[in-house]
């Protein structure tokens, strides 16, 4: 639940640019694969699943920070390739709403797409191992493992970012130790108690503390993992009972004409 909220200006430019390149390449590959099937069917399907994830994300379980994502559910329903496109769309919409930075749309897309793909793979594996009667357990375990992996990937990203320009700062004319302003007009035009004529300190770039960051996300994260696992297990169990083709069928992109689960719509 902590994966998409990297704000702007935290990570170095090279990492952000790399994220954009990788995400655009992934989305391009995914859309090329989608073109092999009926594009006209994929468009509304992607739209509603992306909207579903957005609606879920806008519903807070615990005020302020905890909300469900339904990314594993979306992954199970769409498969990894269409999931990547849905992730890109969701991240764009969320960035415009202030949930995650605009410059880190690329990295956030990779994170959510990974979450959908890993969730999809694990769920299929576990559903086969546990059997169809224990879909809830398969979904719960898949969700917890997926979120643990993506949270670790986030920590890895922060470790990769290290120190550098993004963590550097200048205090302006404010001396952080004495809390006094260095006054550029100290020649005599302005002379107030808090304005002093001193050279402005330029702080050196501080490395991101991976240990501290990991402590925070591994402390707050598991609460979110459990909540998400419970919701995902319940939702997938419900869908599996009512329309099993959606959960146990092949991924939508592999269908030639009609996605699995459409049997109940006509």
């Amino acid at each position, binding site marked *: 639940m902590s994966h998409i909220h990297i704000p702007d200006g935290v990570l170095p430019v090279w990492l952000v640019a790399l994220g954009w390149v990788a995400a655009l390449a992934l989305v391009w590959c995914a859309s090329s694969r989608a073109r092999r099937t009926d594009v006209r069917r994929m468009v509304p399907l992607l739209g509603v699943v992306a909207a579903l994830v957005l609606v879920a994300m806008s519903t807070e379980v615990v005020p302020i920070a905890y909300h469900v994502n339904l990314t594993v559910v979306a992954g199970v329903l769409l498969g990894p390739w269409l999931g990547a496109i849905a992730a890109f769309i969701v991240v764009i919409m969320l960035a415009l709403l*202030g949930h995650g930075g605009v410059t880190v749309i690329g990295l956030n897309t990779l994170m959510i797409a990974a979450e959908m793909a890993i969730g999809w793979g694990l769920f299929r594996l576990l559903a086969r191992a546990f059997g169809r009667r224990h879909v809830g357990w398969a979904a719960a375990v898949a969700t917890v493992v997926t979120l643990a992996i993506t949270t670790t990937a986030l920590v890895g990203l922060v470790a990769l970012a290290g120190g550098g320009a993004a963590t550097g700062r200048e205090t302006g004319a404010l001396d952080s130790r004495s809390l006094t302003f260095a006054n550029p007009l100290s020649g005599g035009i302005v002379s107030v108690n808090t304005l002093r004529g001193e050279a402005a300190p330029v702080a050196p770039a501080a490395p991101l503390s991976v240990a501290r960051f990991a402590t925070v996300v591994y402390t707050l994260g598991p609460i979110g993992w459990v909540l998400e696992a419970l919701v995902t297990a319940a939702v997938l169990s419900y869908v599996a009972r009512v329309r099993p083709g959606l959960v146990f069928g092949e991924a939508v992109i592999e269908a030639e004409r009609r996605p699995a689960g459409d049997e109940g719509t006509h």
Partner: protein
Amino acid sequence: MDVRAIDLCATTGGSRLHGASPVTKLVAFAFVLTAVVVQQNLFVVLACLLLLVALAVGSRLPARQVFGLAAYPAIFSLVFAFAAAPDAFTGAMFVVRAVAASLAAIVLLFVTPYPQLFAPLQRVLPEVVGDALLMTYRSLFLLAEKFEHLRVAIRLRSGLTHGHPVRAARATVGALGALVLYAFDLSQREYDVMRLRGYQGRLRVTLPPAASRSFDAALLASAAAVLLVAVGFRAAGATLTPWSWLLAAAAALALLATIAGRLVRT
């Protein structure tokens, strides 16, 4: 986040910013975002933030929603601030930069209807992605409304199961499951409608012309000036840094003048 309220403000707002060309607003947004992200001086970023607040106040955007959304990334940037900040000022830099960047995106969203915002993006993205972006917008309202109805129904049922949080939680998750099925049925209906209307794989959105070309030019010039100042402070930090507090002070005065002007008019 209430996407319907955002859309209402974007489509019915009568400010000059609402009337500006979507492409101009997107370019201006890109300039301001770059200015915020490249900047390492707390006071310059603070000045950008105050100017964005003045823009939101001057455009009569709904304060509670705009600033509520803009405050959201502050919570997550605090995690990064905790992980990386060697002192309070570096931490403040993380928070102010994240809030300023998200406020720029949120102001853009509140003054530009989604289809106009996505139309320029749609033209450069693969057709599946671009069209799905627009379909997400459409589906979002339908699903949000459906989910709201389901939640009302759940609240009514919870009245009967008061004191049984587990039962209430089950009902909520059941509603989410029902929403998943509704989403799939919705995608099927949308597909049928699109086929009937002759959709061939590219939705067309017409961009409206600017209400005032001079305002568009002024908006672009202002955003470019912000970017130039930011780049100037980054490039010649040692010389200009002692003056940076003046920028924040000027921006604060501009904000006060905007608030006073609005109060006088009302």
